[in-house]
C-alpha cells in the first residue's frame, strides 16, 4: 500500500493536543453546533485523550465544571448541553469528567443515583463511590480488574 510510504508511523501528539485544545472555541462552526446534542460526551472524549497525553491542564477546568453544573436538572439527571433534556449517556459522561477532575461533589450526588439502571448506570454508580460495585476506571470506562487482567496501563502515550 503506497499510503504507508508517506504516512507517519508515530502519533503527532503535539498536533493532536493542539487540535483538541482549540476545538472548544469553535462556537461559530456549523458541525460543532449541530453536535450540541452530545456536547457532554464530546467534552469527555476530548478530556480523556488530553489526559492520556498528559495535557489535561490545557483544558479550561472551571468553565467545564460550570457547564456541568448548569446541565443538572431537578430530577438529578444531566443533559448534553444547557436547555437539553437529561439522559443517562450524558449523566455518565458528566460523572466521568468530574472523576477526572476529582470534583464529583459539585453536582448533587444523591440525586444522580436515581436514573441508573443499565451497564452505563452501573459504571456511573461505581464512580460515585458505590462500594457494592467494582471500581471502574473513568478514562477507559472499564472495570479496573479487567484492565489489570489484560495489563492495560494508562500511560500509553508519552
Amino acid at each position: 500500500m503506497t499510503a504507508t510510504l508517506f504516512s507517519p508511523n508515530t502519533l503527532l501528539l503535539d498536533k493532536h493536543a493542539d487540535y483538541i485544545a482549540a476545538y472548544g472555541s469553535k462556537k461559530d462552526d456549523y458541525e460543532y453546533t449541530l453536535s450540541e446534542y452530545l456536547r457532554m460526551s464530546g467534552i469527555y472524549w476530548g478530556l480523556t485523550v488530553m489526559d492520556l497525553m498528559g495535557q489535561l491542564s490545557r483544558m479550561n477546568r472551571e468553565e467545564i465544571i460550570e457547564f456541568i453544573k448548569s446541565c443538572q436538572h431537578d430530577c438529578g439527571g444531566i443533559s448534553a448541553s444547557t436547555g437539553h433534556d437529561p439522559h443517562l449517556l450524558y449523566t455518565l459522561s458528566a460523572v466521568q469528567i468530574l472523576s477526572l477532575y476529582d470534583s464529583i461533589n459539585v453536582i448533587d450526588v444523591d440525586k444522580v443515583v436515581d436514573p441508573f439502571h443499565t451497564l452505563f448506570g452501573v459504571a456511573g454508580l461505581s464512580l460515585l463511590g458505590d462500594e457494592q460495585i467494582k471500581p471502574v476506571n473513568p478514562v477507559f470506562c472499564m472495570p479496573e480488574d479487567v484492565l489489570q487482567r489484560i495489563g492495560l496501563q494508562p500511560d500509553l502515550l508519552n
Partner: protein
Amino acid sequence: MHGRVKVKSTAQQEEEKRKEREKKLKAFVSARDAVLRKRSAGEHDEEALQLTQQLLSSNPDFATLWNYRREVLLQLETSREKDEVQKLYESELHFIEACLKVNPKSYGCWHHRSWVNTRLPQPDWTRELGLCDRCLSLDERNFHCWDYRRVVVKESGVSVEQELQFTDRLIGSNFSNYSSWHYRSTLLPQLHPQPAPDSASNTSPSPTASPQIHSHRVCEEQLLKEYELAHNAFFTDPNDQSAWFYYRWLLGRAEREEMISCVYVSRERERVSVAFSKPVHAQSEGLMLVLDGQPQQVEWRSTHPRLRHSPVWLCDLPPGSVSDISNEHNLTVHWTEKYTHRDCALYTGCAESWCRDSATDQELFRSELSVEKSSVLQAELQSCNQLLELEPQNKWCLLTIILLMRALDPLGHEKETLAHFQTLKEVDPMRSSYYSDLCSKFLIENTILKMEYAEVRVFSLSNKNLTTLCHLDQLLLVTHINLSSNQLLRLPPQFAMLQCLEVLEADDNAIESLEGLYHLPKLEEVSLRNNQICKLSDLESLASCTKLTRLDLRGNPVHKTANIDSELSQLLPLLCKSQAFVV
C-alpha cells in the same frame, strides 16, 4: 480568451462556502433557540411541530426535540377523534422515515417510531416488517433495525419458524451476514431446544444449579444440520468470518464450575492461601474458615494491592493455632455464596499441606470448545482439515483447527498447534501479537498439564517465544519457575499469586517491570540476566521478599548505575545484610 470556461478561483469558492455555512448555522441557531424557548414556556402547538420538524429533518439525532415532539403529540391527541389521531401518527411515521433516510442509525428515530406504534389506534405491523426488510437490504448489519424487527415480531406474533426462514433467505443469498447468523443462534434454541437431562426433572433443584428457563443449546439432530449449513458457508467463502463465528458457537463453550480450586496451608507462616475458579472479591463472597471444627475470625487479603478482584486470596490463622508440627489439623474453607467448600488436612510432621483438583479434572483448559462429544469434534476436525488442503493459508480455518485440536487433545496435538500458529503469523501478520499471546497461553496450559502428570512443582517454559503470562493462579504451589529465553515484558501483579515460589529464572527476556515480585514469602533466588530493568525504583517491590538471598541483574541497564552495590544495599537491606550474593 475565447472558449475558455470561466472557473471561479479557489478563494472565491471558499468564501462562498463559508457564507453558505454561516447562513445555515444562523438558521439552525435561531430555530433551535425558538424551540427551546417555546418548550420552557410550555407551548404544545402546531408551531412546535413545525420547528422541530425543520430541525430534526437535518439533525435527527437531536434527542431533546423528539422528547418535545412527543409531548406535543400527546397534547394534540386529547383534542382529536380516533381517526384523526390515526392520521396524525401515520404522517408521523412518514416523517420518521424521511429522517431515517438522513441517518438510518439514529437512536432517536427508531425509538420514536416504536413509541408512535404504541399510540396508533391501528398499527400496521406488515408495513413495519416491510420497512425492516428494506432497511436491512440497504445495510444488513443495522442493529437498530434488527432490534426494531424483534419488537415488531413480538408485537405482531410472527412465528419463530417464519423468522428462521427469514434468516435462511438472508444467509442463502449472502453468506456474509453476521447479524443473520447471530439472529439464527437466538432462534434455534427456541425452536429446537436441547432436552434437559433426565435427572433434573426427578430431583428437587439443588441450590447450585443455575436457574435456566431454557438452555441456549440446540438439540443434536438440528445441530448436525447446522454444521452442514456452516460447512457450506465456509467452504464457499472461507474468508468470511461470520460463518466461522457461528460455527464456533455451534461447537459450544463449556462454563467452568464455580468452586474453590486449591487450598494451601503453611505452618511456618500460619497462613492459608485459597485459589478460586474465577476472580472474586473475597469480602463479598461470604467466606468462612473453619479450623478443627471451630469457625475462625480472619481477614482476607489479596496477593497484590492492585488486584482488588483476584482468584487467589490469603489469610493469617490465629498465632500458635497450627505452628506445632506434632499436631494434626483439619481446615475447611466455605464459599457460602456458591454453596461449596474445600477441605484440607494438615498432617503431623508436615510443614505444609494442600488440596487441589487437577487441571484435567477441572476441565480447566477445555472451555473454548468442549460441550460437544469427542466423536463430533473429531469429525469436524476432519472437515476443517479437508478445507485446509484446499486453502492452506486461510486464517479462520487454521484458528478453528487449533481450537478443535485443543479441545480434543492439547498435549498430543502440541507440535501441530505450534506449526499452525507459525503459519497464522505469516498469513495474518497484523494479528501476530494476538497469535503470539494465544500461543503463549496454550503453551502455559500444556506445561501445567505436564507438571501435573509428572507430579512435580517445577514449571519450566524456556525458549518458547512466550509473549505473555496467564493462568498464574494455577501456579500457587510451584516452587521453581524457569521462564528464560522468551519475550516477556513484565512480571505483572498477578505473579504475586505464586506464594510457594523459591527460585525464579527469567534470564534473556525484555522484562522492565517486577511489580509481581511482591511479598513472595519463600522467594530465595532470582535470576534476571539480560532484561530491561532500567531504574533502581523498578526493584522496590523486591524489598518485600524477605527471604531473598540471591539476585542476578547482570545485563540490565540498571546494572550500569553508578555505585550499584551501595544503592542496592540501601534499597534491599535484608538481601545485602545476609551475606547475600548480589550480582
